[in-house]
C-alpha cells in the first residue's frame, strides 16, 4: 500500500469515528454544516452534533486541510486533501464548516498577507470562530466592479471608511469583512483601489438584508459611515488592491463551482426518481419522452462538468496551464443550475407552482424556491456575461 492509500484508510477511519451519524447523508445534500463565526449560524439540526463534528475537525486542522499547521491548517498535500474530500463525500460527511474565510479570503491572505495578518486572521477562520463576508459590489458597481465609490480616507493613525456595499452574503452574521475601497479618488479607476479588513462589530456599520424573489435573504446591503480600520488592515499595497481583488475573485469562482449549485443526484429525490413519480412510467421508463430526454441531457452535462473539474485539477497537478478554468466552471455551473431548476419544476408540473401553505409538500415548495434562487447563480460572483468576456479575452485572445 502506498502512502496515499494508507492516508486514505486512516482518513476513512477517522471520519467514521468522528462524524456523528446524524449529520451523514447519502444524498450528498449538505446538512449540519455551520458557517462559523461568533454568531455561529448552523444550517441544520442537530446543532450539537454539528459543533462536535466541527471541534473534532478543528483538532486535526481538517477545516483548512492544505493550510500550514501554524495557521490552523493540516498542512496536507493537494493529493491528500483530495483524498480527504473524496472520503468525506463517500461517507456522506458534510464539510465541518463552509465559509468565505476558508474558500476565498484565507487563500488570498496566504498569498498576499503579512505574517502578522496571517497569524491574526487565519487560525480563527480554520477553527470556525470568526466568519468573514465580502465587500465588493456596490449599487452602481456590479459587473463593473472597479467603478466602486466607497471612500477610504487616511486619518493618520487609522483609516475611515464611508460608503455602501451590496450583495454582501452573510453580512448580517459576519464578524469581519474584506472590503474593496477607493483609497485614491484621483487615480485611474483600477489604480486607486485598496483591499481593507473591517471589523463589522463597531459603530457606523449598518446591515440590511435584501429579500430575493425566492423569499430568502442570503444577501445584505451594508452601509458604512466613518467606520474605522487600523493601519495594518490593508491587504497588499495601498492603492494596489485591484490585483489582490482579482485573485480573490478567482478563488470565489472556484469555490462556487466546486461547491456547485447542484442538488442530490442519487436517492429518492434524484431527478429520475422524481420524474417517475410525477410524470408516471410506461414500460418502466419516464412516461414523458421529452422530460426523459431533458433529464438524460442534464445528467450527462453534469457528468461532463464534473469530469472537467477533475481533469482541470489533474492538468494543474501535471503542470499544465489552467489559467481561467474558474471562469469556465463558474459560467457552466450556473447555467446548468438554472437548467436543472427549470427541469425540476417542469417535472413537478402544477405541484411546482406553490409558494407556501396547504396543497404542496415542503419538498415541492423547496424546489420552487430553489428554481427561483438559481436565477441568481449566473449573476452573483461575476455574471455569465463577465465570465464569457474573461474567457474570450484571456483564453481565446480575442481583442477588446
Amino acid at each position: 500500500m502506498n502512502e496515499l492509500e494508507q492516508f486514505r484508510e486512516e482518513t476513512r477511519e477517522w471520519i467514521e469515528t468522528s462524524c456523528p451519524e446524524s449529520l451523514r447523508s447519502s444524498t450528498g445534500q449538505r446538512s449540519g454544516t455551520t458557517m462559523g463565526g461568533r454568531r455561529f449560524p448552523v444550517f441544520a439540526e442537530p446543532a450539537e452534533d454539528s459543533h462536535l463534528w466541527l471541534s473534532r475537525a478543528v483538532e486535526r486542522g481538517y477545516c483548512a486541510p492544505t493550510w500550514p499547521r501554524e495557521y490552523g491548517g493540516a498542512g496536507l498535500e493537494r493529493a491528500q486533501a483530495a483524498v480527504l474530500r473524496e472520503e468525506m463525500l463517500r461517507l456522506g460527511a458534510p464539510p465541518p464548516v463552509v465559509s468565505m474565510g476558508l474558500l476565498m479570503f484565507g487563500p488570498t491572505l496566504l498569498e498576499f498577507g503579512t505574517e502578522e495578518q496571517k497569524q491574526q486572521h487565519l487560525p480563527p477562520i480554520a477553527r470556525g470562530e470568526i466568519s468573514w463576508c465580502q465587500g465588493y459590489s456596490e449599487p452602481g458597481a456590479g459587473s463593473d466592479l472597479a467603478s466602486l465609490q466607497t471612500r477610504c480616507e487616511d486619518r493618520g493613525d487609522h483609516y475611515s471608511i464611508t460608503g455602501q456595499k451590496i450583495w454582501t452574503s452573510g453580512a448580517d452574521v459576519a464578524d469581519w469583512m474584506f472590503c474593496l475601497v477607493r483609497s485614491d479618488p484621483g487615480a485611474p479607476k483600477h489604480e486607486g483601489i485598496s483591499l481593507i479588513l473591517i471589523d463589522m462589530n463597531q459603530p457606523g456599520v449598518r446591515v440590511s438584508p435584501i429579500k430575493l424573489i425566492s423569499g430568502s435573504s442570503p444577501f445584505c446591503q451594508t452601509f458604512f459611515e466613518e467606520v474605522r480600520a487600523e493601519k495594518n488592515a490593508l491587504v497588499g499595497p495601498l492603492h494596489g488592491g485591484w490585483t489582490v481583488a482579482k485573485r480573490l475573485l478567482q478563488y470565489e469562482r472556484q469555490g462556487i463551482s466546486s461547491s456547485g449549485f447542484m442538488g442530490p443526484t442519487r436517492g429518492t429525490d434524484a431527478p429520475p426518481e422524481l420524474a417517475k413519480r410525477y410524470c408516471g412510467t410506461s414500460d418502466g421508463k419516464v412516461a414523458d419522452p421529452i422530460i426523459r430526454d431533458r433529464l438524460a441531457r442534464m445528467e450527462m452535462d453534469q457528468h461532463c462538468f464534473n469530469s472537467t473539474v477533475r481533469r482541470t485539477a489533474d492538468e494543474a497537478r501535471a503542470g499544465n496551464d489552467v489559467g481561467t478554468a474558474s471562469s469556465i466552471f463558474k459560467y457552466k455551473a450556473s447555467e446548468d443550475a438554472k437548467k436543472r431548476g427549470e427541469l425540476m419544476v417542469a417535472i413537478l408540473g402544477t405541484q411546482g407552482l406553490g409558494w407556501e401553505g396547504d396543497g404542496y409538500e415542503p419538498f415541492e415548495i423547496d424546489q420552487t424556491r430553489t428554481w427561483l434562487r438559481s436565477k441568481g447563480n449566473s449573476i452573483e460572483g461575476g455574471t455569465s456575461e463577465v465570465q464569457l468576456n474573461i474567457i474570450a479575452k484571456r483564453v481565446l485572445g480575442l481583442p477588446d
Partner: protein
Amino acid sequence: MPLVHSEEQTLLREIARDFISEKSPTGELRRLRDEPDPIGFSKSLWKEMAELGWAGIPFAEEFGGADLGHTELGVVLQECGRTLTASPLLSTIALGGTAIDLGASEALRKEVLTGVCSGQRILAVAHQEQTRHAPYATETRATKTPSGYTIAGSKTFVLDGHVADQLLVVARTSGSSRDRNGLSLFLVDAETPGITRTRTLQVDGRNAARIEFRDVEVDGQRLLGEIDRGAEILDPVLDRATAGLCAEMLGGIEAAFEHTLNYLKVREQFGTVIGSFQALKHRAAELHVEIELSRSIVIEVQQAIDSGDEAVPELVSTAKARLSETAFLMGNEGVQMLGGIGMTDEEDIGLYLKRFRVQQFTFGDASFHRDRYANLRGY
C-alpha cells in the same frame, strides 16, 4: 380578416390600459400578496371591471353582456397581463362563463350568465386531477341517482376555486381514465354539502384550489350538454380559455420587455449604458423577434375563434406553445439583464418571472401543445 385590431378594439384597448394602469398597477398585486388578501384578488376592482362591461364581453345582451367576441376579451386580458392584474376574467369569463354559454340550457344560461355579467357571480372549472394538464385524465366519478348524480373524487389547480360561487365539474360517467368519451359536465353550487375546498398559495401570488367531492349530490338539470359527451364542451372551452391566457401572457411579455429594454438604456457599467453591449443587443433583438411572432398568433387565434374557424384547436396549440416559450425566454432574460436588482423582491421583473411560470403550466405547457398539435395534424 386583417390581422389588426379594429378601431373599436383599439379604443377598448386604450380604455383598458388607462383603467388598469390607474387602478391596478403591479403594486396592487404586491398588496394582495403581502397583506395577504384572503381572496387573492380585489372584489371591488372586479365590480368596477364588470361595470365597464368586461365581465360580459363575450355574452349575449339579454344576459347583460356586450355581445362581443374573444378578440375583445383578449384585448382586455392583454392589458390586465401588462400589470399582472389578478381578476376572475380567466376563471369566470373565459372558462366558466364560456362553458355555460356553450353547454347550458337556455334557462341555466339566463340564471348563471346574468350574475356573471354583473360581476356578482364567480365561477370555476374543476377539471385537472393530476400534476399536469390532461383534459381527459378524469377519475372523479358521477353516479346516477334517482334525482340526479352523486359526484365523488378530487380536483386540483381549480383557478379561483376557493371563492367561486358555482363550480363546473368534469366527472366521468362512463369509460376509463384518459378516455375522451364518458366525461360529463355538471354545474354545482360551491356550498353543496360534501365539498371541501383548500386554497393554495401560488408562486405568482395567485391562487388555485384543491377541491374534494365526497358524495356530492347534484340535480339532473345541472348537467351541461349531453351525458358522456362533456368533452364536446370542455374542448372548446379550454381552447377559448387558453387563447385568453395567451393574450394575458402577451401583455405580460410586452410589459416585461419594455421594462427590461428601459433598464438596458439607463443602467451604466464600464462607462456606458449596458444596452450598447452587442451581446445584450443581439439577445434583446432576438427577444423582439419572438415577441413579434407571439403578437401575430395571439390576434390570429382570437379572430379564428370569433369567426368559427375549424383550425382553432391547431391555432390554440400553436399559440400556447409559442407564448410559453417566449414567456420563458422573457422571464429569464429579464432577470439576467437586470442583474442583481432583478433578483430582488422589490423589482417587478421577478413578479413577471413567477407569473410566466404559472402561465406556462396552465392549460398545458409548450411540450403538451406540441404533442397535441402533432396529434391534430395526424402525426
